[in-house]
């Protein structure tokens, strides 16, 4: 039963497929709740990182408290907990949802149900949330709300007949969303006198306050001066401040009670002490059992990240450490490559996570990077009975010591217009996908399900999927498990020297094809030298593909530009500058683009 105080609180999330208007609706709710002036209103206030805005996705969950007065003049506190929209951040989505009592499901009135709509709804159901469907963008000429309602009912099994028809962008029917949140989403429950039990759903590093812990209080009360304990990490701190989330600011309060959503600070130096999903309790009166839920997040994808300019190694380390403060899922360890020098082996939740980190390093920290081909984690069973996990191809043991190898398999769901089914099935088969099933959502759209090796997805699957379906296919995956596989390590040799940064692990059946493509690509990337350069792809000692960069015949300026020696000197200096940016492999100079180009082999 909710108390009188709790009956005026609603804790909810907004979930949606990317671009269906989640952030726009959030902005609109914030604006309508009257907490912000027009001037304070940035376009998309929840996405406050520059990068997030540009990519149109929300990376880190955040929260905001809205004050809403309904028609009867009753004031409600609505805590909106924002969730990342992408599957890579599945775990964070799940924790954010666990902090809520309900979710607003935004579905685009033209696009209908998509892969991430499904994935997010399933997560909401897993967390026993009340899901309130809302059909957005009804002002679009292509809007088909009736069709989309039916889709929601057929595919998800949710009653959508009374779903509010809105346009967050055009400010149509937003009041109904507020009313329905209050009427449909249950008020929180919990005993404010019981031992403290609060769920951490996010954290944020602030250079003045230290880590700011975002949490939902399920039982008990927390206030300044309380000694608290994080149950998974067993770290103890004294609370310095508690409060709630104003729009873009933190508003300190006296205490937080069961049903509330808010933050605490406690001079915590390290984000890793405050793991998402962990339970906060007090030291003096601890709860016996933590909330179900803390699980360690595992990296699924690894790659090497190196500074293009070797002298920036320390800068790269500093940048990674700073990013890690706010992103506990990012992992990195020092790595040394003969070709690329000093850098880091980094672990990510998925491909998108990798791309975001890479972009943030380049953009926010102004680093010029070289990344190596992404790898998954393989399990290697050795003849001596040991099992090792391999995330760096260069750590691959001698094949004669390997009993068997296993690779991660994901269940991939692809929603697409039926006209592209043939082409996408072919793609999935090429990528060693195992057909699981196909279901029609409506006459012209279907869900294709495949079990696929993750290592076939991490190169460029998403790009190819998009181009083959003219952008209409949406895609989601989840780790299913490991299965035995015939894998080999492919080495690229330039002028007979193996380039460690170009090695990767590939299924036996596609090794020759991939080796050939890599050799072709490298041939295009390596400038001609004064001597001939063989490029070879090799498995062990066996050469499976070969290309040759012929020797340069001519590099001469006929004219000396009259007396303008400076012009000639500048030309030579430019040539030298180009050489300096190259990576030296024996006597061959490899441009940095060579390392990056092999990441996208199927482009043409």
């Amino acid at each position, binding site marked *: 039963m909710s108390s009188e105080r709790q009956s005026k609180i609603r804790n909810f999330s907004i979930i949606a497929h990317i671009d269906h208007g989640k952030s726009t609706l959030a902005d609109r709710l914030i604006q309508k709740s009257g907490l912000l002036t027009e001037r304070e209103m940035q376009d998309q206030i929840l996405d406050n990182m520059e990068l997030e805005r540009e990519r149109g996705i929300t990376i880190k969950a955040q929260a905001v408290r809205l004050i809403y007065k309904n028609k009867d003049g009753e004031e409600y506190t609505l805590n909106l907990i924002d969730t990342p929209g992408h599957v890579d951040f599945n775990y964070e989505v799940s924790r954010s949802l666990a902090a809520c009592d309900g979710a607003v499901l935004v579905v685009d009135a033209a696009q209908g149900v998509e892969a991430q709509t499904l994935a997010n709804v399933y997560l909401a159901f897993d967390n026993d949330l009340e899901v309130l469907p809302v059909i957005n963008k009804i002002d679009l000429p292509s809007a088909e709300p009736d069709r989309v309602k039916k889709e929601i009912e057929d595919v998800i099994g949710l009653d959508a007949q009374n779903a509010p028809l809105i346009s967050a962008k055009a400010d149509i029917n937003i009041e109904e969303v507020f009313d329905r949140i209050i009427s449909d989403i249950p008020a929180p429950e919990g005993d404010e006198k019981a031992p403290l039990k609060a769920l951490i759903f996010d954290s944020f590093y602030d250079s003045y306050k230290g880590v700011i812990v975002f949490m939902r209080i399920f039982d008990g009360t927390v206030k300044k001066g309380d000694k608290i304990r994080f149950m998974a990490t067993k770290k103890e701190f004294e609370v310095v401040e508690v409060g709630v989330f104003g729009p873009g600011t933190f508003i300190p309060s006296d205490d937080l009670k069961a049903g509330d959503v808010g933050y605490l600070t406690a001079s915590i130096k390290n984000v890793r002490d405050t793991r998402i999903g962990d339970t906060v309790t007090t030291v003096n009166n601890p709860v016996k059992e933590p909330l179900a839920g803390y699980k360690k997040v595992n990296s699924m994808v690894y790659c090497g990240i190196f500074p293009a300019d070797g002298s920036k190694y320390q800068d790269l380390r500093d940048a990674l450490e700073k990013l890690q403060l706010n992103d506990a899922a990012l992992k990195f360890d020092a790595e040394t490559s003969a070709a690329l020098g000093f850098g880091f082996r980094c672990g990510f939740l998925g491909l998108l996570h990798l791309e975001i980190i890479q972009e943030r390093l380049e953009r926010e920290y102004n680093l010029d990077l070289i990344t190596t081909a992404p790898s998954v984690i393989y399990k290697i069973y050795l003849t001596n009975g040991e099992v090792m996990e391999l995330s760096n191809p260069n750590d691959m043991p001698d094949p004669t010591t390997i009993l068997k190898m296993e690779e991660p398999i994901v269940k991939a769901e692809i929603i697409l217009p039926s006209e592209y089914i043939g082409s996408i099935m072919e793609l999935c088969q090429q990528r060693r996908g195992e057909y699981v099933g196909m279901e029609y959502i409506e006459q012209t759209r279907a869900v294709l399900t495949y079990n696929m090796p993750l290592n076939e997805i991490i190169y460029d699957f998403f790009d190819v999927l998009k181009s083959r379906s003219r952008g209409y296919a949406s895609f989601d995956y989840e780790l299913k498990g490991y299965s035995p596989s015939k894998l080999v390590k492919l080495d690229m040799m330039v002028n007979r020297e193996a380039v460690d940064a170009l090695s990767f692990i590939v299924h036996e059946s596609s090794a020759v094809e991939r080796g050939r493509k890599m050799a072709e690509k490298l041939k295009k990337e390596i400038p001609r030298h004064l001597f001939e350069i063989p490029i070879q792809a090799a498995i062990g000692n066996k050469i499976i593909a070969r290309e040759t960069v012929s020797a340069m015949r001519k*590099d*001469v*300026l006929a*004219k*000396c530009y009259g*007396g*303008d*020696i400076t012009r000639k000197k500048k030309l030579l200096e430019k*040539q030298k500058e180009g050489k300096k940016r190259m990576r030296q492999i024996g006597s061959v100079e490899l441009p940095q683009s060579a390392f990056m180009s092999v990441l996208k082999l199927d482009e043409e």
Partner: protein
Amino acid sequence: MEDKKLSIYIHIPFCAAKCLYCDFLSFQGAEQYFERYKNALIREIESFKNPEKYNVCTIFFGGGTPSVFPPEFFYEICNALYKKFNISSDLELSVEANPGTLSEDILNNFMLCGVNRLSIGAQSFDDKILKIIGRIHTSSVFFKSFELIRRKGFDNVNIDLMFSLPFQSLSCWESTLKTAVELEPEHISAYSLIIEENTPIYGLYKNGSLDLPDERTDREMYYAAKDILKSSGYEHYEISNFAKEGFRSKHNTVYWKREEYIGFGLGAASFLNGFRFKNTDNMELYLDGCAYEQIEKIKDRDAYSEFIFLGLRMMEGISISEFENCFGISIFENYSSQIENLIKQGLLVMDKDRLYLTERGIDVSNSVFVEFL
């Protein structure tokens, strides 16, 4: 005090028509500037400080096409130079000229002004190719001009030729060379076409409408030039230059040997007292009397590399002892590993006191020079 040697370059940035491959600083149809330009040049010459310290050994009128400049203006400029500077008794006074712009009057005037070397841009004797690269003359016009030049008594004449031209075959180039040899000029320059950005030909090249000889053919053309010209009594003395005995270009040799020169005119470059500087290439600014735009003090290290990359353009290469006399430091102090590597790669030869490029070293000379920067 002994006079210092000095060379003078005069830039005449005007042409009857701009060739499609040309990225030199030059304008066509700019007659309205002629007089003001002449005045600005004379003003610049007259403002030169301490001319008495120098003895001028070479003067070179380049362009553009100096032969399009009105004879009376040309005369005034020469006059200004002779008034200002001490002139060496063996002065080499060269003028670049294009066939079709040479009349009896112009040549008479050159003779009057003391011009004793002419450099004629023939480029090719194939009329189809001449047209494609935007030259205004035909081969028969060239032959007439050349005959006139000889008749007027010019006995030190260079013919500029180009290879690696669009639609040019090796045999076509060989016959161009043979024709040039039959004319018996004292000097022949053979330049490989460089497609520069910001030229009309670059656009044609980019959109693929130029059939250019490949690199292999380019090199075969170069080797053909060496074979044919050497066997006809021309000495190959610089990457692109060939001369009968005693007829090397004294002026260009100044550049290659890092001797001093002063450039007058729009965008003209100078090297004096350890500084390299360059005039503005903005015509209006220049006419208003604004000259220097870039100035660079050559640091020791830059001087070393200039000495090497300019000197190695000459077939005789550089002298190890001369380097040491010049800079008070052995060339091996800074470059021993480079020299060793280049010799190992067969690009450079060390023969007693001299270092020079091999045939292969010439073909890839930029790669060699870069090592010395």
